[in-house]
């Protein structure tokens, strides 16, 4: 059983929680994730380690309520318990030796990108962050991101906050005005990662993306998380979740993530009925 130490709602659909998990906190590195299972009947769901504090013995997760499991978790409060919390899983990102990085987040993907930006910043790189959101009311982590970068650019699709437009537009213009990035990290909806990778390919900038296939064990025993990278099948939970964006087959990932779409819609609606009513689905896909 794992204690929820604190909880903060970042917007209508996105929640931040601090979980008591001292052993995981000791080891957690940027790029890694945990798998939680809320109760005996729940699914095993992967979430990125957004932050960790070895001193407090805590691991921070930031998640969007998109389906049954995340919906039910968002209804828990500080003081409640989560049955299972396994980690740290996946390969830590190797963020040493970069001079000027551009970290791009899309929606809740900003939460996943944040620890990488923080580590790059701590390693002495110049860090620009482009944080894309659909609209003003879902902007998250603005202060946290500001604290770990040199420039924060916020874009919204509808222009209600920051600059109007897509993150790819902003990236292009930053490159055009002469920013000499030696690393781009893109984390967010699959189409966003795909288009960012297309842009950086033209400029030959190394690009890392964090993939989010469906997972069960997270230790390499089911193969459910397989993705195609550079024409080869890789298991995202052990070989990733970060991969070279220029090599990933994003279209296949999008198809595979729809594996249970029809069944999950039913589960999600049921969870909303027993819960606090449907959270606005803010997923951009």
């Amino acid at each position: 059983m794992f204690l929820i130490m604190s909880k903060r709602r970042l917007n209508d659909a996105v929640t931040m929680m601090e979980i008591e998990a001292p052993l995981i906190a000791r080891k957690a590195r940027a790029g890694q994730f945990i798998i939680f299972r809320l109760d005996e009947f729940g699914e095993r769901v992967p979430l990125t380690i957004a932050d960790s504090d070895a001193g407090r013995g805590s691991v921070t997760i930031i998640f969007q309520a998109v389906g049954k499991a995340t919906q039910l978790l968002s209804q828990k409060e500080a003081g409640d318990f989560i049955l299972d919390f396994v980690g740290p899983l996946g390969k830590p990102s190797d963020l040493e030796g970069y001079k000027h990085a551009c970290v791009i987040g899309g929606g809740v993907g900003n939460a996943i990108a944040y620890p990488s930006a923080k580590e790059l910043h701590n390693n002495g790189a110049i860090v620009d962050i482009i944080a894309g959101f659909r609209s003003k009311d879902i902007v998250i982590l603005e202060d946290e991101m500001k604290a770990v970068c040199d420039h924060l650019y916020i874009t919204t699709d509808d222009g209600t906050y920051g600059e109007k437009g897509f993150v790819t537009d902003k990236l292009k213009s930053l490159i055009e005005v002469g920013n000499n990035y030696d690393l781009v990290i893109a984390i967010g909806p699959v189409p966003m990662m795909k288009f960012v990778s297309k842009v950086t390919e033209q400029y030959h900038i190394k690009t890392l993306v964090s993939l989010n296939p469906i997972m069960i064990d997270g230790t390499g025993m089911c193969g459910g998380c397989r993705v195609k990278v550079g024409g080869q099948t890789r298991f995202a939970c052990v070989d990733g979740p970060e991969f070279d964006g220029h090599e990933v087959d994003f279209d296949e990932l999008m198809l595979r993530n729809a594996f249970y779409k029809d069944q999950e819609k039913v589960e999600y609606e049921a969870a909303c009925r027993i819960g606090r009513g449907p959270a606005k689905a803010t997923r951009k896909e």
Partner: protein
Amino acid sequence: MAINTSLKKVPMPAQDPLIRNHNFKEVTTGYTPEMAVEEARRCLNCKTKPCVAGCPVNVHIPEFIHLITEEKFEEAFQKITETNSLPAVCGRVCPQESQCESRCVRGKKGEAVAIGRLERFVADWHREHAAQSPPKAAANGHKVAIIGSGPSGLSCAADLAKLGYAVTIFEAFHTGGGVLVYGIPEFRLPKAIVSDEINNLRAMGVNLQTDMVIGRILSVDELLEDLNFDAVYIGSGAGLPSFMGIEGEDLIGVYSANEYLTRSNLMKAYDMEYATPIRKSRAVAVIGGGNVAMDAARTAKRLGAEKVAVVYRRSFAEMPARKEEVEHAQEEQIEFLNLENPVRIIGDERGQVKAMEVIKMKLGEPDSSGRRRPVAIPGSNYELNVDTVIVAIGTTPNPLLKKTTEGLETDRWGCIYTKDNGATSREGVFAGGDAVTGAATVILAMGAGKTAAASIDKYVRHKHPELRQAEP
């Protein structure tokens, strides 16, 4: 007591095939005490005990069977557990036909004594009647860490706990039991049996910590150095699934057997109370011919598929699955497409499986394994109309522990190298079960756990002379 001269085993009561292929309840329901006594009377109590030599853990077979004839079921249980700590499991899943029963003299003319069924009967009788927890041994002040809670980890833990060690099992999954809970289905091995065994271990003082992926949260070195375990036993199994590398394997509707069975068994997708999604299939092809393929096929049928076919590139004679499982599958209307091999999987415009192209095979010359090698018959390809493909062509050990433990040697398949006593290339680190042998059997994994427990005890005693003095 007079010998029962019947040439056949007392039949095992079972659910009707066409009813059981729609539920997850156990297929066979077990002997009654009367049936058990009747079958036990078929044993000749041979002086030379050929059957015992066929059992990897040398269960005292004639002795326990004799006790059954006297209706001393609890004593029979104690006799079995002198060498086998999981009889309710082994009685159900051991390949008896190639082990103990293959050596039985009654098998020369007629059927062998039903050693497995009797073992199961005795274990079930004990569970129902004498369910008092096993005693806790006096502590000897030393600690052993066990990685993995499959049969090899469990039996190693049991033996060490009996010797007074403080044993902690670290399990990556949220439930203990290894393949016994995530692989072998409920209808062959009820999960209540596995959890009873684990509760017995707990009563003996064993500490099972779930959600602990060793190599990530703690390394083997940290267990030895920071947490002061005297020794580590690696029983992490062979859980990494192989794929065929053919076109279409990443389509929606293609599963590894591990994923399919884990969703169904461990995550209980068949139970509406659980949130686990699993594909609602109409027609399923399962590729492979082992126990895993049989389990996946029979699970698919129970989950509602109209048609389930096992596609295997050799013939029944070479099939590695237990004979009983193949027969049960056939009774349950699983089709067998033997001497056929997949060529590619075909998807529709939404990336969903709609068919699989297969090619017919014939058997050629024997290969290095001694089995006749299948060769494709050119031009015999055809399309099988399926919406789900389950790949059950084998597994290898997970590389995580090798990668994170310096100096731990493995062979080129990733199997951990050990000496006969279970010692690895690292001092204080022992290993056994599928992690060492590659995918094998429950009883071999248990045997390896026992061997390692004895070696670990010897190793710790050697390092701590004060323990040697206290030796009984």
